[in-house]
Protein backbone atom coordinates (compact mmCIF):
# COMPACT_ATOMS: atom_id res chain seq x y z
CA UNK A 1 0.00 0.00 0.00
CA UNK A 2 1.12 3.53 -0.73
CA UNK A 3 2.65 5.24 2.28
CA UNK A 4 1.28 8.64 3.17
CA UNK A 5 3.62 11.34 4.45
CA UNK A 6 2.62 14.58 6.11
CA UNK A 7 5.04 17.53 5.98
CA UNK A 8 4.27 20.45 8.28
CA UNK A 9 5.85 23.88 7.83
CA UNK A 10 9.06 24.87 6.12
CA UNK A 11 9.49 25.92 2.54
CA UNK A 12 12.75 25.10 0.75
CA UNK A 13 13.32 21.89 2.65
CA UNK A 14 9.68 20.97 2.27
CA UNK A 15 9.63 21.62 -1.44
CA UNK A 16 12.69 19.50 -2.04
CA UNK A 17 11.57 16.74 0.27
CA UNK A 18 8.05 16.65 -1.15
CA UNK A 19 9.33 16.31 -4.69
CA UNK A 20 11.78 13.63 -3.70
CA UNK A 21 9.13 11.64 -1.79
CA UNK A 22 6.62 11.93 -4.63
CA UNK A 23 9.24 10.64 -7.05
CA UNK A 24 9.72 7.65 -4.79
CA UNK A 25 6.02 6.89 -4.91
CA UNK A 26 4.84 8.22 -1.54
CA UNK A 27 1.64 10.15 -1.12
CA UNK A 28 2.55 13.58 0.22
CA UNK A 29 0.49 16.23 2.01
CA UNK A 30 1.94 19.58 3.03
CA UNK A 31 0.61 21.98 5.66
CA UNK A 32 1.90 25.53 5.50
CA UNK A 33 0.67 28.72 7.13
CA UNK A 34 2.06 31.18 4.59
CA UNK A 35 -0.25 31.67 1.66
CA UNK A 36 2.47 32.60 -0.86
CA UNK A 37 4.47 29.52 0.07
CA UNK A 38 1.39 27.38 -0.47
CA UNK A 39 0.95 28.88 -3.93
CA UNK A 40 4.57 28.17 -4.79
CA UNK A 41 4.30 24.60 -3.45
CA UNK A 42 1.20 24.13 -5.55
CA UNK A 43 3.43 24.07 -8.64
CA UNK A 44 4.39 20.54 -7.67
CA UNK A 45 2.12 18.02 -9.30
CA UNK A 46 0.13 15.54 -7.19
CA UNK A 47 1.04 17.32 -3.96
CA UNK A 48 -1.82 17.91 -1.51
CA UNK A 49 -1.56 21.29 0.16
CA UNK A 50 -3.41 22.57 3.19
CA UNK A 51 -3.12 26.24 4.09
CA UNK A 52 -3.17 26.68 7.87
CA UNK A 53 -1.36 26.40 11.19
CA UNK A 54 -0.25 22.80 11.60
CA UNK A 55 -0.11 23.10 15.39
CA UNK A 56 -3.91 23.35 15.44
CA UNK A 57 -5.75 20.05 15.66
CA UNK A 58 -8.51 21.04 13.23
CA UNK A 59 -5.95 21.86 10.53
CA UNK A 60 -4.37 18.46 11.00
CA UNK A 61 -7.82 16.95 10.78
CA UNK A 62 -8.41 18.71 7.50
CA UNK A 63 -5.15 17.23 6.24
CA UNK A 64 -6.51 13.80 7.21
CA UNK A 65 -3.67 13.26 9.63
CA UNK A 66 -5.26 10.05 10.92
CA UNK A 67 -4.55 8.41 7.55
CA UNK A 68 -0.85 9.31 7.55
CA UNK A 69 1.98 6.86 8.13
CA UNK A 70 4.72 9.40 8.78
CA UNK A 71 4.58 12.98 10.05
CA UNK A 72 7.53 15.32 9.63
CA UNK A 73 7.67 18.69 11.41
CA UNK A 74 9.85 21.21 9.58
CA UNK A 75 8.90 24.60 11.02
CA UNK A 76 11.53 27.04 12.28
CA UNK A 77 10.29 26.94 15.84
CA UNK A 78 11.14 24.08 18.17
CA UNK A 79 7.98 24.52 20.20
CA UNK A 80 5.80 24.27 17.09
CA UNK A 81 7.58 21.15 15.92
CA UNK A 82 7.15 19.56 19.33
CA UNK A 83 3.44 20.27 19.45
CA UNK A 84 2.93 19.10 15.86
CA UNK A 85 4.59 15.78 16.59
CA UNK A 86 2.80 15.30 19.90
CA UNK A 87 -0.57 16.00 18.32
CA UNK A 88 0.20 13.66 15.44
CA UNK A 89 1.23 10.93 17.84
CA UNK A 90 -1.34 11.25 20.57
CA UNK A 91 -4.38 12.52 18.82
CA UNK A 92 -4.01 11.14 15.32
CA UNK A 93 -1.99 8.05 16.23
CA UNK A 94 0.52 8.44 13.44
CA UNK A 95 3.07 5.62 13.63
CA UNK A 96 6.25 7.56 13.01
CA UNK A 97 6.99 11.18 13.78
CA UNK A 98 10.12 13.11 12.88
CA UNK A 99 11.04 16.59 13.99
CA UNK A 100 13.64 19.20 13.18
CA UNK A 101 15.09 20.85 16.26
CA UNK A 102 17.23 23.99 16.27
CA UNK A 103 18.51 23.91 19.81
CA UNK A 104 20.92 20.96 20.17
CA UNK A 105 20.22 20.89 23.90
CA UNK A 106 16.65 19.84 23.28
CA UNK A 107 17.42 16.74 21.20
CA UNK A 108 17.16 14.35 24.13
CA UNK A 109 14.11 16.07 25.49
CA UNK A 110 12.34 15.63 22.16
CA UNK A 111 13.11 11.92 22.22
CA UNK A 112 11.81 11.71 25.78
CA UNK A 113 8.59 13.26 24.57
CA UNK A 114 8.07 10.28 22.30
CA UNK A 115 9.16 11.69 18.96
CA UNK A 116 10.64 8.86 16.94
CA UNK A 117 13.37 10.76 15.11
CA UNK A 118 14.94 14.09 15.93
CA UNK A 119 17.15 15.88 13.44
CA UNK A 120 19.32 18.79 14.45
CA UNK A 121 20.37 20.61 11.32
CA UNK A 122 23.04 22.71 12.99
CA UNK A 123 24.97 19.87 14.57
CA UNK A 124 24.53 17.67 11.49
CA UNK A 125 25.84 20.27 9.09
CA UNK A 126 28.70 21.36 11.31
CA UNK A 127 29.75 17.76 11.80
CA UNK A 128 29.89 17.23 8.05
CA UNK A 129 31.88 20.42 7.57
CA UNK A 130 34.29 19.37 10.26
CA UNK A 131 34.80 15.98 8.70
CA UNK A 132 35.28 17.40 5.25
CA UNK A 133 37.62 20.14 6.33
CA UNK A 134 39.97 18.31 8.64
CA UNK A 135 40.20 14.76 7.47
CA UNK A 136 41.34 14.58 3.86
CA UNK A 137 41.59 10.85 3.74
CA UNK A 138 38.00 10.35 4.50
CA UNK A 139 35.55 10.88 1.75
CA UNK A 140 32.33 10.11 3.45
CA UNK A 141 30.92 9.35 6.84
CA UNK A 142 27.42 8.13 7.39
CA UNK A 143 25.97 8.10 10.86
CA UNK A 144 23.31 5.66 11.90
CA UNK A 145 21.39 5.05 15.11
CA UNK A 146 21.50 8.70 16.15
CA UNK A 147 25.18 9.13 15.52
CA UNK A 148 26.14 6.28 17.78
CA UNK A 149 27.43 4.25 14.85
CA UNK A 150 29.50 5.61 12.00
CA UNK A 151 30.20 4.11 8.64
CA UNK A 152 33.23 5.74 7.09
CA UNK A 153 35.29 5.37 4.00
CA UNK A 154 39.06 5.69 4.08
CA UNK A 155 41.22 5.69 0.99
CA UNK A 156 44.56 4.01 1.57
CA UNK A 157 47.61 6.01 0.56
CA UNK A 158 51.21 5.01 0.19
CA UNK A 159 52.47 6.55 3.41
CA UNK A 160 49.77 5.32 5.72
CA UNK A 161 50.87 2.87 8.41
CA UNK A 162 48.22 0.35 7.40
CA UNK A 163 49.42 0.14 3.82
CA UNK A 164 50.56 -3.41 2.87
CA UNK A 165 49.48 -4.80 6.22
CA UNK A 166 47.24 -7.76 6.79
CA UNK A 167 44.05 -7.19 8.73
CA UNK A 168 45.11 -9.30 11.72
CA UNK A 169 48.22 -7.17 12.09
CA UNK A 170 46.17 -4.08 12.79
CA UNK A 171 45.15 -3.18 16.29
CA UNK A 172 41.75 -1.65 15.74
CA UNK A 173 39.82 -0.43 18.76
CA UNK A 174 36.96 -2.51 20.13
CA UNK A 175 33.62 -2.50 18.38
CA UNK A 176 35.00 -1.61 15.02
CA UNK A 177 35.41 -3.58 11.84
CA UNK A 178 36.63 -3.18 8.30
CA UNK A 179 33.55 -4.49 6.60
CA UNK A 180 34.34 -4.12 2.94
CA UNK A 181 37.24 -3.24 0.67
CA UNK A 182 36.80 -1.61 -2.71
CA UNK A 183 39.76 -2.44 -4.96
CA UNK A 184 39.85 -1.58 -8.66
CA UNK A 185 36.09 -1.21 -8.69
CA UNK A 186 35.67 -4.66 -7.25
CA UNK A 187 34.37 -5.43 -3.82
CA UNK A 188 36.07 -7.73 -1.34
CA UNK A 189 34.66 -8.91 1.93
CA UNK A 190 37.95 -9.00 3.83
CA UNK A 191 39.22 -11.79 6.08
CA UNK A 192 41.96 -11.72 8.66
CA UNK A 193 44.64 -12.54 6.13
CA UNK A 194 43.52 -10.00 3.52
CA UNK A 195 46.31 -7.57 2.73
CA UNK A 196 45.52 -3.85 2.49
CA UNK A 197 46.98 -2.19 -0.59
CA UNK A 198 47.48 1.36 -1.72
CA UNK A 199 44.41 2.72 -3.46
CA UNK A 200 42.00 0.50 -1.54
CA UNK A 201 38.90 2.08 -0.18
CA UNK A 202 38.10 0.66 3.22
CA UNK A 203 34.56 0.75 4.50
CA UNK A 204 34.76 0.85 8.27
CA UNK A 205 31.94 0.43 10.74
CA UNK A 206 32.61 1.69 14.23
CA UNK A 207 31.07 3.32 17.24
CA UNK A 208 31.30 7.07 17.30
CA UNK A 209 33.67 7.12 20.26
CA UNK A 210 36.22 5.06 18.40
CA UNK A 211 36.25 7.14 15.28
CA UNK A 212 39.25 9.24 16.16
CA UNK A 213 41.28 6.31 17.42
CA UNK A 214 40.66 4.50 14.16
CA UNK A 215 41.65 7.44 12.02
CA UNK A 216 44.83 7.68 14.03
CA UNK A 217 45.56 3.99 13.67
CA UNK A 218 44.91 4.04 9.94
CA UNK A 219 46.47 7.29 8.85
CA UNK A 220 49.04 7.83 11.57
CA UNK A 221 47.68 11.33 12.17
Amino acid at each position, binding site marked *: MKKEVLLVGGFHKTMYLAQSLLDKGYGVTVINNIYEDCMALAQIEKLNIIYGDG*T*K*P*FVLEEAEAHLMDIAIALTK*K*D*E*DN*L*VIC*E*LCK*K*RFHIQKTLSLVN*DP*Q*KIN*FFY*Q*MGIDSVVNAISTVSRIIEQQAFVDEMTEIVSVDDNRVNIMEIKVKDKMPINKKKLYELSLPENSIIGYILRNNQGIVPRGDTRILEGDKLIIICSKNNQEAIIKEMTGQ
Partner: protein
Amino acid sequence: MLEKRIVVVGCGRLGASIANDLYEQGEDVIVIDKNEDSFRKLSDSFGGLTYVNEGTRVETYEQLELKKDDILIVVTNDDNVNIMISQLVRKMFQIHTIICRLYDPQRECVYQEFGIETICPTYLSVNRIENILRGKRSA
Protein backbone atom coordinates in the same frame (compact mmCIF):
# COMPACT_ATOMS: atom_id res chain seq x y z
CA MET B 1 15.99 24.70 53.52
CA LEU B 2 15.01 27.26 50.96
CA GLU B 3 11.51 28.56 50.85
CA LYS B 4 9.28 27.31 48.08
CA ARG B 5 9.63 29.62 45.11
CA ILE B 6 7.10 30.57 42.48
CA VAL B 7 8.47 31.05 38.98
CA VAL B 8 6.35 32.98 36.50
CA VAL B 9 7.37 32.59 32.85
CA GLY B 10 6.15 35.39 30.62
CA CYS B 11 5.61 38.87 32.02
CA GLY B 12 2.53 39.87 30.05
CA ARG B 13 -0.66 41.21 31.58
CA LEU B 14 -1.48 37.91 33.26
CA GLY B 15 2.11 37.13 34.27
CA ALA B 16 2.68 40.59 35.74
CA SER B 17 -0.55 40.68 37.72
CA ILE B 18 -0.12 37.22 39.16
CA ALA B 19 3.48 38.07 40.11
CA ASN B 20 2.37 41.31 41.79
CA ASP B 21 -0.38 39.55 43.71
CA LEU B 22 1.76 36.68 44.89
CA TYR B 23 4.51 39.02 45.99
CA GLU B 24 1.99 41.07 47.99
CA GLN B 25 0.95 37.83 49.68
CA GLY B 26 4.53 37.32 50.78
CA GLU B 27 5.59 34.65 48.31
CA ASP B 28 9.09 34.29 46.93
CA VAL B 29 8.49 35.21 43.28
CA ILE B 30 10.74 35.06 40.21
CA VAL B 31 9.55 36.46 36.88
CA ILE B 32 11.19 35.44 33.59
CA ASP B 33 10.78 37.29 30.32
CA LYS B 34 12.99 37.58 27.26
CA ASN B 35 12.26 41.27 27.03
CA GLU B 36 13.35 43.61 29.82
CA ASP B 37 10.68 46.16 28.92
CA SER B 38 8.01 43.68 29.94
CA PHE B 39 8.96 44.11 33.58
CA ARG B 40 7.58 47.66 33.49
CA LYS B 41 4.16 46.05 33.88
CA LEU B 42 5.14 44.98 37.40
CA SER B 43 4.05 47.35 40.13
CA ASP B 44 6.59 49.70 41.72
CA SER B 45 6.42 47.85 44.98
CA PHE B 46 7.28 44.50 43.40
CA GLY B 47 10.33 43.17 45.19
CA GLY B 48 10.68 39.72 43.64
CA LEU B 49 13.39 38.67 41.24
CA THR B 50 13.20 39.59 37.58
CA TYR B 51 15.23 37.58 35.16
CA VAL B 52 15.80 38.44 31.49
CA ASN B 53 16.21 35.26 29.50
CA GLU B 54 14.67 33.16 26.80
CA GLY B 55 12.05 31.00 28.50
CA THR B 56 12.49 28.20 26.00
CA ARG B 57 16.16 27.63 26.78
CA VAL B 58 17.39 24.85 28.97
CA GLU B 59 20.03 27.05 30.63
CA THR B 60 17.47 29.48 31.94
CA TYR B 61 16.10 26.84 34.28
CA GLU B 62 19.44 25.31 35.10
CA GLN B 63 20.64 28.68 36.35
CA LEU B 64 17.62 29.00 38.60
CA GLU B 65 18.35 25.59 40.11
CA LEU B 66 14.68 24.72 40.42
CA LYS B 67 13.57 22.32 43.12
CA LYS B 68 10.77 19.78 43.04
CA ASP B 69 8.67 21.85 45.39
CA ASP B 70 8.94 25.07 43.44
CA ILE B 71 5.89 26.13 41.48
CA LEU B 72 5.96 27.05 37.82
CA ILE B 73 3.37 29.28 36.16
CA VAL B 74 3.75 29.39 32.38
CA VAL B 75 1.89 32.28 30.79
CA THR B 76 3.69 33.44 27.65
CA ASN B 77 1.50 34.54 24.77
CA ASP B 78 2.25 31.48 22.66
CA ASP B 79 0.47 28.20 23.38
CA ASN B 80 3.16 26.05 21.85
CA VAL B 81 5.88 27.77 23.83
CA ASN B 82 3.87 27.21 27.00
CA ILE B 83 3.44 23.55 26.18
CA MET B 84 7.13 23.06 25.50
CA ILE B 85 8.31 24.91 28.59
CA SER B 86 5.93 22.98 30.84
CA GLN B 87 7.01 19.64 29.52
CA LEU B 88 10.69 20.58 29.49
CA VAL B 89 10.71 21.75 33.08
CA ARG B 90 8.65 18.77 34.22
CA LYS B 91 11.18 16.43 32.61
CA MET B 92 14.23 18.31 33.87
CA PHE B 93 13.27 18.93 37.47
CA GLN B 94 10.22 16.72 38.20
CA ILE B 95 8.42 19.76 39.52
CA HIS B 96 5.03 18.78 40.95
CA THR B 97 3.03 21.91 40.36
CA ILE B 98 3.03 23.41 36.90
CA ILE B 99 0.22 25.68 35.81
CA CYS B 100 -0.01 26.64 32.18
CA ARG B 101 -2.22 28.96 30.18
CA LEU B 102 -3.55 27.73 26.84
CA TYR B 103 -5.63 29.89 24.55
CA ASP B 104 -6.67 27.01 22.36
CA PRO B 105 -8.47 24.34 24.37
CA GLN B 106 -8.07 21.87 21.52
CA ARG B 107 -4.41 21.45 22.29
CA GLU B 108 -5.10 20.28 25.80
CA CYS B 109 -4.87 16.61 24.83
CA VAL B 110 -1.11 16.97 24.54
CA TYR B 111 -0.95 17.54 28.27
CA GLN B 112 -3.23 14.99 29.73
CA GLU B 113 -0.68 12.33 30.51
CA PHE B 114 1.76 14.80 32.04
CA GLY B 115 -0.50 16.00 34.82
CA ILE B 116 0.08 19.64 34.03
CA GLU B 117 -2.67 21.98 35.15
CA THR B 118 -4.04 24.06 32.32
CA ILE B 119 -6.21 27.10 32.39
CA CYS B 120 -8.00 28.23 29.30
CA PRO B 121 -9.30 31.81 29.09
CA THR B 122 -11.99 30.74 26.62
CA TYR B 123 -13.48 28.18 29.02
CA LEU B 124 -13.22 30.56 31.95
CA SER B 125 -15.03 33.28 30.03
CA VAL B 126 -17.71 30.90 28.83
CA ASN B 127 -18.33 29.71 32.38
CA ARG B 128 -18.43 33.20 33.75
CA ILE B 129 -20.81 34.44 31.05
CA GLU B 130 -23.09 31.48 31.59
CA ASN B 131 -23.07 32.12 35.33
CA ILE B 132 -24.03 35.74 34.79
CA LEU B 133 -26.83 34.71 32.45
CA ARG B 134 -28.08 32.12 34.92
CA GLY B 135 -28.05 34.75 37.66
CA LYS B 136 -30.06 37.13 35.51
CA ARG B 137 -32.62 34.45 34.67
CA SER B 138 -33.23 33.35 38.22
CA ALA B 139 -33.50 36.94 39.44
